[in-house]
């Protein structure tokens, strides 16, 4: 017991020394999957974070910000080790990034122990922010993006839906959120789960064909969405009148344009589209494309961009101090992001944002998710339900 207190004290001192001693530079550890199957997530976030620093300068509250990028290769125990090293050796003020749910959960105990705020820029399982009081999120939660989809579907004459999700945390989250909300409105739902690593969707799509639903709700991690779309169309599901709906991952901006006409007409709900009509977004997209030719910012990028903003503004407020002060400063913060108005819920440390209903259309020769309806200020429904 005595030892435990000692460890706690040591960790606290460490966090203190991180801000008190290293006056000159404040270090931000950015841990991302830069190689492996989820590398594209890492690349988007890194590019956005660097863009933010390039735009806003690398000095905050009189101190220099140093970004340390580490590749966890998408492996959770590596994430944890890297986080630990960054905390212990580099004495970072904030850790950020975290491309997938397990990667965000693995270092959570460290955040608590060392009192280092952990800014989740990508992972989207609802429960993540409950893993540590030092976790704050600038991406989204799947239920947040999904429940509006269910409501929209119910209001627009869809009665029977088949859900098809990747079999892992976020997928199951999406399935539950949609099924709950849609069944609550009197709809009929059938669930299908596909393995996370899956080369061929055809057997699952065949099941969908056989079920003859009004709409197919789909969640697959961004990246394999394209494959899904193609097979959806190849199977003629679009022509047989099955609407494709889901959270925006499947029509990820990063690869949407490459999907071609097969993606046209897909209806998704999400917090960000590169086609979002606002001056902030136009500037963001343009700058992003200039800095990274051949890339279009997607919802991962905006999560990284806003994450950096949150870190900058938080540090400004605390005058460079980290730890508890920084996480407190981040709570309740609100600003206008490229995606629209957003804020950090002071209770849950999760993001509150508008969710947009979009449809894939061709704009100036390129495919975009064009927003046509807005549901304002959506909180994560899972945690909202708990607090009520």
């Amino acid at each position, binding site marked *: 017991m005595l030892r435990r207190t000692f460890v706690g004290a040591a960790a606290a001192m460490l966090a203190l020394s991180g801000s008190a001693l290293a006056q000159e530079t404040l270090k931000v550890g950015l841990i991302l999957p830069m190689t492996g199957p989820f590398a*594209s997530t890492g690349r988007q976030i890194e590019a956005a974070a660097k863009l933010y620093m390039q735009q806003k300068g690398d000095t905050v509250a009189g101190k220099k910000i140093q970004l340390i990028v580490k590749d966890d290769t998408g492996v959770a125990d590596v994430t944890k080790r890297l986080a630990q090293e960054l905390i212990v050796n580099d004495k970072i003020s904030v850790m950020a990034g975290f491309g997938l749910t397990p990667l965000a959960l693995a270092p959570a105990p460290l955040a608590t122990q060392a009192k280092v705020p952990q800014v989740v820029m990508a992972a989207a399982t609802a429960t993540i922010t409950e893993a540590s009081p030092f976790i704050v999120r600038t991406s989204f939660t799947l239920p947040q993006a999904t429940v509006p989809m269910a409501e929209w579907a119910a209001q627009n004459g869809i009665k029977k839906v088949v859900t098809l999700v990747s079999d892992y945390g976020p997928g199951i989250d999406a399935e539950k959120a949609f099924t709950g909300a849609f069944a609550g409105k009197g709809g009929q739902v059938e669930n*299908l789960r596909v393995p996370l690593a899956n*080369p061929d969707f055809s*057997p*699952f799509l065949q099941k969908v064909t056989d079920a003859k639903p009004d709409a197919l709700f789909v969640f697959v991690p961004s*990246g394999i969405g394209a*494959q899904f779309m193609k097979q959806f169309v*190849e199977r*003629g599901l679009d022509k047989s009148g099955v609407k494709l709906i889901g959270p925006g991952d499947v029509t990820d901006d990063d*690869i949407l344009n490459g999907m071609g006409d097969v993606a046209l007409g897909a209806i998704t709900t999400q917090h960000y589209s590169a086609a979002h009509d606002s001056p902030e977004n136009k500037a963001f997209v343009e700058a992003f494309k200039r800095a990274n030719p051949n890339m279009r910012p997607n919802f991962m990028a905006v999560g990284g961009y806003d994450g950096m903003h949150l870190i900058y503004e938080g540090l400004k407020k605390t005058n460079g101090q980290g730890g508890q002060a920084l996480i407190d400063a981040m709570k309740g913060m609100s600003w206008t992001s490229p995606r629209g108005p957003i804020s950090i819920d002071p209770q849950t440390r999760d993001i509150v944002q508008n969710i947009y209903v979009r449809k894939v259309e061709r704009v100036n020769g390129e495919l975009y998710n064009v927003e046509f309806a807005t549901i304002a200020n959506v909180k994560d429904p899972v945690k909202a339900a708990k607090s009520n």
Partner: protein
Amino acid sequence: MLTILFDGIAYGMLLFVLACGLAVTLGLMNFVNLAHGAFAMAGGYVTAVLMNRHGVPFLATLPLAFIVPALIGLVLERTLYKRLYARSHLDQVLFSIGLVFMAVAAIDYSMGSQQQLIQLPSWLQGRVEILGIQVGLYRSFIIAVCGALVVALQLILTKTRFGSRLRAAVDDPRVARGLGINVSLIFAATFAVGSGLAGLGGALGAEILGLDPTFPLKFMIYFLIVVTVGGTTSITGPFLASLLLGIADVAGKYYVPSVGAFVIYTLMIVVLVLRPQGLFDRAR
């Protein structure tokens, strides 16, 4: 029902074209080439780059998707692979895994990590109904192309001089050499053709299997299953194994989605333990 069978056959055919080169290198040169998938990836990227950056029509890219990996294969065979024929399987495995790592990183560096997408010509999109079965046009195309390849390969192997020399070299390289057959040349040519076929498979499969830098690692296991289950002494063995695997995979996911992959791996182990020479090999 029959649609599932049809999809499985298309998938299996594709696997065969991807993996048959591996079967030949393994059977002929007794070389375990885990980097086989890298050649397939090369073919896929040739097609993707030609189509997306240079606007070459899909069909026109296919010959190049064969030729480019074949040339790469030829060069690598002459410079590196041939040094390793006499080594242990372990050395070969390590060497080819090293090549895979390099290929993955190199493609990632030059092409980016995202999925490469290709636009099929419109006449290959969609599906038609034949005798009450829903048939995907592109999958029919794959079956046709791969079926033609299988027949061609079988004819080359059994009817041509090259085929008989190849078979002689497989049976006993020393005797073949004694008969004045240039075994080394046959090895090189076969390796190149095998790599080229993999490339073609990669190009055809980009639409169905996806194409990104991790392709060689993702599908390596499938290729190995085809080869080890099918055996390496003939073309028909791996062919039947591919079809079986394709149909089992698709049907498994359709009927028992929660145990699909499980069944395939277990089956592989059972086959290997009971028939180490492969399911369709003649008993020796």
